[in-house]
């Protein structure tokens, strides 16, 4: 079959250079796309490509650098490339974990942005077959003196809390830093850790020609579609309906989906499952097909929708939450439906795994998008740029750090200490973590307030130590050292609680990578992280990249955040971080 049968839909906007540009596709990329297709893409195809070739899905500026990170160790069962990384913790038990950013959504709508960030990272973990047992988060805001920052801060904290609390996964740790560089660009990184039996590991690989592809969970609405800028008179809906809709989290549905997914995975009725996260149906289906090296066909009219009149473009790009894409075993569709129904959720067959190496989307009988094989994923352009350090930072670094003029009103050490303790970044974060249920699941041995959280693995004598650390200012001043230090800080925190560091996940929060100085920070920080991971024998099992964290005032501090998992072989090794009793000696270790 040739692609000549692909049809543009009546009412679709014309493909103009302006439309292509609005979708963030460069001329170079557009040319590559036309060459791949051998024809002009349809509007639906432009939408698909804009999503898949976005930085978020494709890592086009960071992948070459990420490839340099160490990813292997005997205990690593699943490295980068899946929904979450997985390590063995012995005795047949495995831990899945991953970190994800929701920086931009949280800047617009802090409560929902943060809540849906937690929802997404939970799904990444339970789609691997693991039951989520802990959440952590790493937050960055501007100074609390700004009312807008206070609104962002309280909204984010409430969003994180409400979502995790409702699903019933304890939030056991995290960090909060306030610094002017994050004023317009708060960072919200959420990490989830799950526990499973090694033999329950499930990968998101579409397999088996003829197997049905099913959409399960919540219905698809117009949430998060970046359609607003394309509103055109020709479209049938009113412009009101075209407004991009903020994704709203529904943690109760997430809880149902969590239980249903784990039951599905254990039932043997399915071969793969993946979250419909960023770029929704598009990226989940294309990625699963690419991993399985098979073709897929999807009929958008079969997707359960929340609203009438949704176009293929909208259905494919919707970022409605609490949805999963499942590849079921042929003939087991009803079994899948029954499990979902038990949890009051829907499941619908929306497509099929096919032998023909194409990625095809139909609207009923009409083909509205079709790409050759997995080239859509594999041929995404990758960019390697020339890194260059900013002169200003070079100069700043050249300064002697001891050469500081005392503040005018600086008094004694006690006064200084009080001032330090009162600064929001150093002050107690109790206000934050009191809003998080940290004790549900009755496994939190050390919760918020310790260097690393310790969560016991019920049914064993073991525990895991978890922490999340990053220091943007350090990375800004010296990207490579800062990258190293972030990993080392995490390792120290984990070690202090009695654990041996095992692996990390990371979130790279940076500015616009097309700027040579940002690219420099990125490449150096990644190199530094890699060095530390190698030395500490803690490979990288996954992570996330959030670039373009900029506003007119400039970029954020380059902020890699490191989420580390350490293993405590015996509960007897758990070590507290608080002073225990009067009379104990205090010893300073290290130099």
């Amino acid at each position, binding site marked *: 079959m040739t692609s000549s049968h692909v049809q543009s839909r009546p009412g679709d906007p014309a493909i103009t250079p302006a439309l292509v540009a609005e979708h963030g596709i460069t001329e170079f990329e557009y040319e590559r796309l036309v060459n791949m297709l051998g024809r002009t893409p349809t509007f639906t195809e432009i939408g698909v490509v804009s999503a898949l070739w976005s930085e978020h899905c494709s890592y086009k500026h960071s992948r070459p650098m990420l490839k340099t990170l160490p990813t292997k160790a005997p205990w690593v069962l699943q490295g980068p490339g899946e929904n979450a990384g997985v390590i063995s913790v012995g005795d047949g038990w495995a831990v899945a974990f991953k970190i994800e950013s929701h920086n931009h959504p949280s800047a617009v709508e802090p409560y929902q942005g943060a809540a849906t960030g937690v929802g997404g990272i939970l799904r990444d973990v339970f789609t691997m077959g693991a039951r989520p047992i802990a959440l952590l988060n790493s937050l960055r805001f501007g100074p609390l003196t700004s009312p807008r920052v206070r609104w962002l801060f309280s909204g984010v904290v409430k969003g994180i809390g409400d979502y995790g609390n409702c699903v*019933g996964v304890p939030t056991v740790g995290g960090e909060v830093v306030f610094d002017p560089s994050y004023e317009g660009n708060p960072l919200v990184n959420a990490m989830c850790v799950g526990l499973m039996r090694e033999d329950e590991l499930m990968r998101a690989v579409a397999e088996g020609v003829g197997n049905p592809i099913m959409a399960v969970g919540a219905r698809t609405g117009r949430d998060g579609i970046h359609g607003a800028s394309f509103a055109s008179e020709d479209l049938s809906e009113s412009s009101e309906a075209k407004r991009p809709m903020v994704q709203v989290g529904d943690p109760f549905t997430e809880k*149902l989906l969590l239980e249903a997914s784990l039951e599905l995975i254990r039932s043997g009725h399915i071969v793969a499952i993946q979250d419909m996260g960023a770029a929704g149906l598009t990226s989940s289906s294309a990625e699963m097909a690419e991993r399985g090296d098979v073709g897929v066909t999807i009929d958008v009219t079969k997707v359960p929708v929340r609203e009438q009149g949704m176009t293929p473009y909208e259905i494919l790009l919707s970022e409605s939450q609490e949805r999963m894409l499942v590849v079921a075993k042929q003939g087991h569709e009803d079994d899948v439906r029954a499990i979902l129904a038990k949890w009051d959720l829907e499941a619908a067959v929306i497509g099929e795994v096919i032998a023909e190496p194409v990625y095809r989307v139909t609207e009923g009988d009409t083909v509205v998008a079709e790409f050759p094989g997995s080239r859509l994923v594999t041929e995404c352009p990758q960019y390697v740029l020339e890194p260059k350090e900013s002169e200003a930072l070079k100069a700043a670094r050249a300064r002697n750090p001891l050469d500081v003029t005392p503040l005018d009103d600086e008094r004694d050490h006690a006064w200084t200490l009080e001032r330090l303790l009162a600064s929001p970044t150093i002050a107690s974060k109790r206000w934050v973590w*009191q809003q998080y249920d940290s004790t549900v699941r009755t496994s939190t041995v050390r919760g918020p307030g310790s260097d690393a959280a310790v969560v016991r693995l019920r049914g064993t004598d073991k525990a895991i130590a978890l922490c999340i650390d990053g220091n943007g200012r350090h990375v800004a001043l010296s990207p490579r050292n800062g990258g190293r230090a972030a990993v080392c800080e995490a390792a120290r925190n984990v070690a202090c609680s009695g654990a041996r560091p095992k692996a990390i996940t990371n979130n790279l929060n940076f500015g616009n990578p097309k700027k040579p100085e940002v690219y420099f920070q990125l490449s150096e920080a990644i190199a530094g992280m890699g060095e530390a991971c190698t030395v500490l024998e803690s490979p990288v099992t996954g992570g996330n990249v959030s670039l373009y964290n900029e506003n007119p005032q400039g970029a954020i501090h380059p902020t890699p955040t490191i989420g580390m998992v350490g293993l405590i072989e015996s509960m007897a090794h758990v070590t507290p971080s608080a002073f225990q009793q009067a009379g104990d000696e205090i010893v300073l270790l290290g130099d």
Partner: protein
Amino acid sequence: MKAGIVRFPGSNCDEDAFHAIADILGQEAVYLWHKDHDLQNVDLVILPGGFSYGDYLRAGAIARFSPIMQEVVAHAKRGGLVLGICNGFQIACEAGLLPGALLRNVSLRFVSAPVDLRVESIATRFTSQYHVGQIINVPVAHGDGRYTADADTLARLEAEGQVVFRYVSANGDASDAANPNGSQRNIAGIVNAEGNVLGMMPHPERALETALGSVDGIPLFQSILESLAGGVRA
């Protein structure tokens, strides 16, 4: 003892309650699915914490209509033991098993913290193994824990010794500062007039192991065992 832990779709302390009964107390535990009608002859029903049906409208409002709740109410009316923890307390109030209601915390924020409770009454089937005035440390984790009832109800609860736990400071004062949610009279837990239904916002099932920081919940479960061993059965 055989304990049944009700599993609403959004329950999330069900596994913890199961673990408490089965692994720590070494008793028989079963789950009771919300869509079922069978209580499986349990001696004790636990309504666990969580967000039974999302609790978006009002905590516990929807749960009380689930099929299993009809049986739980019947069990309670027969004198069977019911322990409602956190969301379970909210559900018990909504279902009319206990008087009053649990409203949004006065701070409007979720509160997760270990709190001190004073045992106000040991003349119940849930607290005989404590002593009156004993201060115990048990975690709370809730957004809607402000116990509210009309003046007559409050007076009756106090007069009849139905207030079982009160939030207090470390030295035992039922002060505002020690009240995590703005509950009237610092009420943390109450029993019904017949004494067979206990509702409490704090989580005794999270206070049963040294590794988790407190074992102050153990006497509560021992009291239940004691009471059942005494032959007072449903």
